[in-house]
């Protein structure tokens, strides 16, 4: 357990300035969504190109299947197409909305597959990886590194509860049963983990996206 936890992770200034600099000519997510709301297919393609890797990685991690993940990712972007005009930028970032939609649909699918007994056996990570372009690799590698370093600062038992909830869609009671841990302990760990994650990433959320 980390005894001297810092309020935020300290990343080298040079690292942040080099790796988290926004592309000046890039259309904002909000503008893309407004264009999609006007039935602009090109905007939908751009939004897809921007987030396909992170969203697909998330779906594969949850569903453990490329086939199911592609199916869900298609559903997500059709939902974006249909509901872009309902997006309220005052409520949060487009990235958060996309991730939340994707995760919600993936967990629904996960439960449906589990109910049908068709949940894929755990595959090795190598089976999922495919080559992406260099810019995309760099973009996600850098951000993944920041998030993972933050998670490493969180005690292991807290990190485990966060991952079980986020990637397996388990409730607190289900996590308690899975780990053989009292429900109260799970709640405490989850809350502490969330607070620390926010402390660690709080100052950098804006820079990350």
């Amino acid at each position, binding site marked *: 357990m980390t005894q001297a936890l810092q309020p935020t992770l300290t990343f080298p200034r040079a690292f942040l300035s080099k790796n988290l600099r926004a592309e000046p000519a890039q259309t904002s997510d909000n503008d893309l969504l407004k264009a999609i709301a006007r039935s602009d297919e090109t905007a939908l393609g751009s939004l897809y190109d921007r987030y396909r890797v992170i*969203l697909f990685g998330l779906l594969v991690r949850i569903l453990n299947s490329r086939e199911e993940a592609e199916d869900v990712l298609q559903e997500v972007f059709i939902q974006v197409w249909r509901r872009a005009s309902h997006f309220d930028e005052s409520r949060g*970032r487009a990235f958060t909305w996309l991730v939340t939609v994707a995760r919600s649909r993936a967990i629904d699918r996960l*439960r449906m597959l589990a109910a*049908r007994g068709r949940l894929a056996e755990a595959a090795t990570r190598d089976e999922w990886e495919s080559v992406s372009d260099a810019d995309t690799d760099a973009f*996600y590698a850098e951000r993944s590194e920041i998030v993972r370093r933050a998670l490493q600062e969180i005690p292991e038992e807290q990190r485990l509860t*966060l*991952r079980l909830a*986020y990637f397996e869609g388990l*409730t607190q009671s289900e996590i308690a049963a899975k780990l053989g841990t009292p429900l109260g302990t799970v709640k405490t760990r989850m809350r502490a983990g969330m607070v620390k994650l926010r402390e660690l990433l709080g100052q950098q959320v804006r820079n990350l996206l």
Partner: protein
Amino acid sequence: MHALTALDPGDARLLTAHIEHCSECRSTLDQWEETVALLAFDAGGVEPSRQLRERILHATRNTPASSQAGGQTAEATNVIPMPVRRSEGFSMQSWTAIAAVFAFAAFVISLLVLWSQHNASRQELALLSMQVKDAQQQLARQRGAIEIVTTPGTQSVELEGTEVAPEAHATVAYDRSGRAVLLANNLPPTPEGKAYQLWFVVSGQLTPGKLFSPDASGHGSLEDQIPAKARGSTGFAITLEPAGGVAAPTGQIYLRSSQ
């Protein structure tokens, strides 16, 4: 926890209902969701197939965008419904629910059976209680009769059947105090609303005694107290009378003493 959708369903419903009316909590939840969404980077990026992009764009060409879907009335919101905790087909939960229904039905049926058995037992117990009570009364009468018969100085008188009941026979035993017991055999069954009545014969006059009815085998008995004025009587008769008894005989004589 709600941002992680990790709350148990009951808690999640309560919180969802609350944030619909509490802008402060909704704003806090939005901030937590911003942080939680970053966990997607923990999964690492994976490149989907190149064909997926075209499939999506092709699908959207046949799907009206939100601005064109005039029928849609959804309010502007980024709120994503909680993943529905349901399953298709019969999951373990479904089987568990079905098993629970059957178990409950079996429980209810067993309760009804037990209740029915309980009622039957109660009725049987009531019947047995009545039989025991009758047996106790009969035993008490027999003890009384034995006591009378065995008391020193007790006298007995035989009664013979008349032409309407030639097979009938009875004995009346009485002690000095006037306690008398009648034991009769082979008496015809009494018609509905009728009973046999004992009479004491005093100076040619009949004094009414108690009523009785024989059992299915023709046996009948009763205890009575011979009136003081009839103590010296040695004559007895039994007639068939209305069930409530009469002050003077109205029916035929079935038994009478020979003296």
